[in-house]
């Protein structure tokens, strides 16, 4: 009966996967940070879960995957605090929030695929999320505060100085704030729809 879940990362699926992390797309640095975290955690979670999956019944599957993801995220939080503490501070509570986002991602995947397929699929989805967050961070930072790579030094080392494009008080502040997060993501998805539509 298993309704086959498709691998297609359609715009609705994209919304569901990215939404909880959207707040972290306000600057390139944050987007990059959370994107890297996702790129590491999602495939890792998939590997762990597909190891577990054969041992699980339908009643425990969801609980087990949620617990696994929560534990994984707790580890990531600790590691970030230890090795990228500045980034950890700016990502605040959005690291633990990856939990709910990961659960969604897990369910975008088919349950009956092989280890290799699952892994490849999860990498694709993680890339999908990271690739969504980056341009968002880019656009929001540029439009919102007229800069690029603000605070990027925290993540990439001090060599990465901030690029200032125009004066801060000219920024279209909306882009940096929650409304801007949703609206720019909406526009991004519309652009994506438009491209797909034109291609076909």
């Amino acid at each position, binding site marked *: 009966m298993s309704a086959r879940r498709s691998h297609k990362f359609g715009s609705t699926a994209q919304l569901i996967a990215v939404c909880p992390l959207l707040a972290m797309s306000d600057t390139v640095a944050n987007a990059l940070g959370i994107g890297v975290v996702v790129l590491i955690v999602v495939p890792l979670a998939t590997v762990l879960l597909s190891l577990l999956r054969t041992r699980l019944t339908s009643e425990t599957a969801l609980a087990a995957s949620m617990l696994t993801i929560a534990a994984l995220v707790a580890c990531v939080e600790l590691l970030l605090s230890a090795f990228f503490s500045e980034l950890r501070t700016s990502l605040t509570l959005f690291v633990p929030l990856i939990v709910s986002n990961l659960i969604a991602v897990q369910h975008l995947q088919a349950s009956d695929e092989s280890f290799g397929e699952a892994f490849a699929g999860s990498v694709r989805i993680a890339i999908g999320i990271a690739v969504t967050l980056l341009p968002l961070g880019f656009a929001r930072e540029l439009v919102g505060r007229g800069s690029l790579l603000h605070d990027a030094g925290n993540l990439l080392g001090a060599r990465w100085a901030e690029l200032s494009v125009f004066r801060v*008080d000219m920024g*279209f*502040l*909306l882009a940096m*704030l929650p*409304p801007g997060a949703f609206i720019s993501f909406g526009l991004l998805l519309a652009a994506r729809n438009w491209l797909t539509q034109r291609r076909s």
Partner: protein
Amino acid sequence: MRQVLYALVPTVALHVVFFGPGLLIQIVLGVVTALAAEAAALRLRGKPLPPFLLDGSAIITAVLLALCLPPLAPWWLVVSGVAFAILLAKHLFGGLGANPFNPAMVGYAVLLVSFPARLLQWLPPNVAGFEPASLSFLQTLTTILTGTPPAQFTWDAITSPTPLDALRTDLALGMTMGEAHANALFSAFGGRGWEWINLATLAGGGWLLALRIIRWQIPVAMLTALFVCASIMSAADPGAYAGPLFHLTSGASMLGAFFIATDPVSAATSPRGKLIYGAGIGVLTYVIRTWGGYPDGVAFAVLIMNLAVPLIDRYTIPRIYGHAR
């Protein structure tokens, strides 16, 4: 919709009397942008242009938004605000009649949130007791177009907060109402200039009511709610809260009640729903003005209640003839 524009004439006229010709320039800029944006959106959506361009709804959006901006605001503010309103808040949702949020207020809120500093630079009213550095029409025009005042003036010299803003600031500094009121911006019951503008708006709104273009429920409910909130709070502590008359005649109270909250498209539709909707706007306006971060709350209150409209509509369906309930 034409009548709505005519009803705004007294408001605009007094505005120009008190704050100079800036508004007229803002309106022209706004209307041109609105029509251009409307035409572009209609073209993209494959809709016929003339009936939609001529019905006046885009013009109303532009005029109402222009009325909310400081008269000397740089041109790109009104242009981007109106474009945002028409393209994103109206056509994206399906155009005329389908937009759940009030386009003008979306445009204004976007500007307020993005450029708070610019939107707080109001002018002092042109009344006795103030010697505003009055700019000529040409100076006004260049100020708007270049975004900087003429060489002999500085921003600080020509701008002044609105009474609502000044009151907020002063109360936040721990002044009492009495001390704050000593400011020359205030008169016996309202902000100078603003009280007359609000009365003119009331008159225009009354005319719309008489023409039955708007219904009484929303304005009455909104103003009553505002009045009641202000009365209760100022009775409880007259030193810390402005009185009801001040609230009714300040900021966008009247404009909101008669021209903005009454936007039929984004308002509740049944009579009972309109009462709830209006009262909600009144209460939220008071709350945001009094305790929130922005000096006037009408725009946000309208948007928040817009959000609740489908819910209100759902729970206020009138009893159908012949149905029990």
